[in-house]
């Protein structure tokens, strides 16, 4: 059975939910303290939370810890690397994904459900979605305003949209360029998403739309 590491930094707080979602998707998952090694795992997930209390910039300090050397190896070898919320911030700070996540355009923490349009269903994390499918997931962040110099060169995976899938200014919660909610690297094996798929992985949470992120990832890692 494929095994995923869920990396825990001081301040991480979505590790249990993420571990549970991966198990539900059919793989083994283990929470791994950031001082441990990632060998013996098939993929790595950086979950949400507030590593190092978001001091300096969200994700900045976690991105410079030794374990990120191993995460970079995973990325280089083409194995799956998923960053959720704070994990996405860590991946951009570590240079594994392009761009940066700035404070939200409206100056407060945002915690609510959003609609997303699946812009790219050809990544290992989105292969079970239909192209253009509209899904629901929650966001919970203060620094989710995605910025990149040249958005035309970025592999956009999810965009904030309205219920019909229209990518509009009004549907953009945080000011991200082109309503970007999730991006992948060129090969597609590294994904960063501000919306939380693990918080939409069971019907009792209000949506199961996020579970396909984990199922796609697990299916791909099995091959």
């Amino acid at each position, binding site marked *: 059975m494929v095994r995923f590491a869920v990396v825990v930094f001081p301040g991480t707080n979505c590790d249990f939910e993420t571990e549970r979602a991966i198990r539900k998707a059919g793989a083994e998952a283990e929470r791994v303290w950031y001082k441990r090694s990632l060998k013996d795992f098939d993929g790595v997930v950086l979950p949400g939370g507030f590593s190092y209390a978001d001091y300096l910039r969200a994700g900045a300090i976690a991105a410079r810890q030794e374990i990120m050397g191993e995460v970079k190896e995973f990325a280089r070898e083409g194995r799956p690397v998923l960053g959720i919320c704070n994990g996405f911030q860590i991946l951009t700070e570590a240079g594994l994904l392009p761009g940066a996540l700035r*404070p939200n*355009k409206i100056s407060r923490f945002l915690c609510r459900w959003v609609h997303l349009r699946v812009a790219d269903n050809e990544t290992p994390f989105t292969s079970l979605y239909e192209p253009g499918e509209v899904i629901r997931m929650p966001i919970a962040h203060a620094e989710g305003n995605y*910025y990149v110099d040249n958005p035309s060169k970025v592999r956009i995976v999810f965009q904030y949209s309205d219920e019909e899938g229209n990518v509009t200014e009004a549907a953009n919660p945080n000011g991200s360029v082109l309503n970007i909610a999730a991006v992948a690297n060129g090969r597609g094996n590294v994904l960063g998403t501000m919306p939380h798929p693990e918080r939409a992985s069971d019907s009792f949470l209000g949506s199961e739309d996020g579970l396909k992120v984990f199922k796609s990832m697990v299916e791909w890692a099995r091959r």
Partner: protein
Amino acid sequence: MKWKVKVIVRLKEGLNDPEGRVIGKALRNLGYAVENLRVPKYFEFELESENPEEEVEEMCRKLLANPLIHSWEYRVEPVS
């Protein structure tokens, strides 16, 4: 040799600074004609180094700033 280092990291021109906007608005509400308030980050520390400027430049690039969205400046003085 030991140095006193002062670093200022700023959001690049043109990038929205929501914290600055809110503080500027609060000052305007108090009756001050404040415009374009920005909130840079300020760091000060002591550094034992033979090449302080080179090292501080490297620190800014590696951690204190995100070169994609920030610019920085610093001052290095000998600790008396």
